[in-house]
């Protein structure tokens, strides 16, 4: 599980996404307060913080599930006040969910194929007939999906409805579905939560491989500090909706505010 520390972030890599002064509240509850940070092309960016710090809310803002009241999101050079899920997906943002959001009644294969939804263009007429172009298109995408299945080592569960799979494998299928979108930016919400050590190591390996083989930019939320220190190029730390630190794993590790936040020093 020793990923070679990435040098990409240290260079002058291009910024893929930046959030500027974003604030988000639900009624009176402020989930995110004036947070800014950026994600550079090709890096693995970790978002950490205690429970309720606003990490998942942040991902939801980035892929358009939540619409912040203030601030802007700049993605691929275009600045917006808010994203929309459909736009985010078609612009190459893929994600997984904290609690695994798979299509439980569908097989592993169909779940991952659904990640190809935006890349299949055949019109409804041919689809109705499942003939000619529609069939050809289906087979081409099937080939791509099989590569992902090989990559994630889940050949044996191809035909099983994912609702029946153990949690660790479900997480892997969910990653597969996100990869099928060939994303430019991959958002992973606690990809290793609830896994045993072996499963965690596998997942770490997949994340590193995705980053290195495909150059995919990754933003991940993770609680396991060992994992974060190994994987991440840079880390942003949130606490009570505020950004309290931002830097390399080493810098963050030694930051007094971060240590206080994790040890629960009172906030007055």
């Amino acid at each position, binding site marked *: 599980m020793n990923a070679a520390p990435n040098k990409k972030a240290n260079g002058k890599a291009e910024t893929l996404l930046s959030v500027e002064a974003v604030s988000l509240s639900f009624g009176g509850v402020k989930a995110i307060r004036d947070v800014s940070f950026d994600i550079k092309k090709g890096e693995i960016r970790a978002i950490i913080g205690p429970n309720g710090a606003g990490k998942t809310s942040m991902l939801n803002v980035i892929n358009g*599930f939540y619409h912040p009241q203030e601030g802007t999101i700049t993605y691929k050079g275009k600045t917006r006040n808010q994203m929309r899920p459909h736009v985010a997906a078609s612009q190459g943002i*893929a994600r997984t969910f904290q609690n695994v*959001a798979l299509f439980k009644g*569908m097989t592993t294969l169909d779940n991952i*194929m659904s990640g*190809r*939804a935006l890349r299949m263009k055949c019109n409804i007429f041919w689809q*109705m007939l499942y003939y000619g172009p*529609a069939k050809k298109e289906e087979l081409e995408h099937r080939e791509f999906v099989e590569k992902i299945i090989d990559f994630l080592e889940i050949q044996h569960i191809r035909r099983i409805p994912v*609702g029946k799979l153990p949690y660790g494998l479900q997480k892997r299928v969910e990653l597969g579905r996100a990869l099928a979108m060939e994303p430019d930016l991959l958002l992973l919400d606690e990809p290793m939560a609830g896994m045993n050590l072996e499963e965690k190591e596998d997942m770490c390996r997949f994340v590193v491989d995705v980053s290195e083989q495909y150059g995919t930019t990754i933003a991940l939320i993770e609680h396991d500090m060992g994992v974060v220190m190994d994987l991440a190029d840079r880390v942003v730390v949130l606490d009570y909706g505020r950004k309290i630190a931002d830097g390399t794993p080493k810098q963050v590790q030694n930051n007094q505010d971060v240590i206080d936040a994790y040890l629960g020093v009172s906030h007055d």
Partner: protein
Amino acid sequence: MLFVLETVISGALAGIMYSLVALGFVLIFKASGVFNFSQGVMALFAALTLVGLLSGTIPFTNTDNPALALPVWAAIPLTIFVMFIVAVLIEKFILRHLVNQEHIILFMAMVGLTYVFEGVGDMMWGSDVKVLDLGLPQGAWDWLFDTHDLYVEKIEMVAAATAAVLVTVLAVFFQKTRIGRALRAVADDHQAALSVGISLRNIWIIVWSAAGIVALAAGVMWGAKSGVQFSLSLIALKALPVLILGGFTSIPGAIVGGLIIGIGEKLVEVFSGELIAAAFAGLIEIDPGVFSATENWFAYVLALFFLMFRPQGLFGEKIIERV
């Protein structure tokens, strides 16, 4: 014996008619989890529209202008187009505003929609019973009658063939294609579907259009058999027990459920009186005529009985949940 066979066949063919309506329910339920109470009225509305176009009725005036009457080949595509517009309107004015609402709220919206359809259909095309003449074959199938002495109506054979084609196309569409997969994805998890870039709006429009086309097929078959009239919307209710038997999410289930209900109710209607009277012959005197109206309620009792043992239906997906 021949009479029993004839009863079974006529029951099966009537069952196919129920299946056609049930199919529309299944489509929408599968893709959006919405129980579309208005499916029966949609069938009526589609049939009314088709008759109106064929006879050149000017909407909202209740007058016919024969000069505007369209030929069949133009009227059917135009009716399909109207059903597509209806789907767009339903998405825009109802579904879009009810995303993530409780099922009961969506259900009530569908009940409301039912009466909107009925009212608008009445205002646009008038409420008198109309004859639907598409040139579909009428009367008995002579060959079968001459050679085997069996009485089977041709229109019912056409309905059976139509149902077979619709079911095959829909089953392949759902299982094998991108849009079919997207439909199932939306049914399963809205948020996950959004995250892979599936557009809920397009999916709903597609699925309601498909349900509209199925409704048209059902409306045409029933209309050609017994005239286009407002009692047609009551067939929708017969589709309910069909769904309970077949399972709300199964396309083949809609067909098998329809067959069971159709055959069952015909057999019970025709034979139960005599059988029961014969069984109690020595004990009490039972008038077989008492059991002559079972066709109206048999289906519901069967469905109720079924719910006790297999609530998900014969072909329904068993609900799996990891806790």
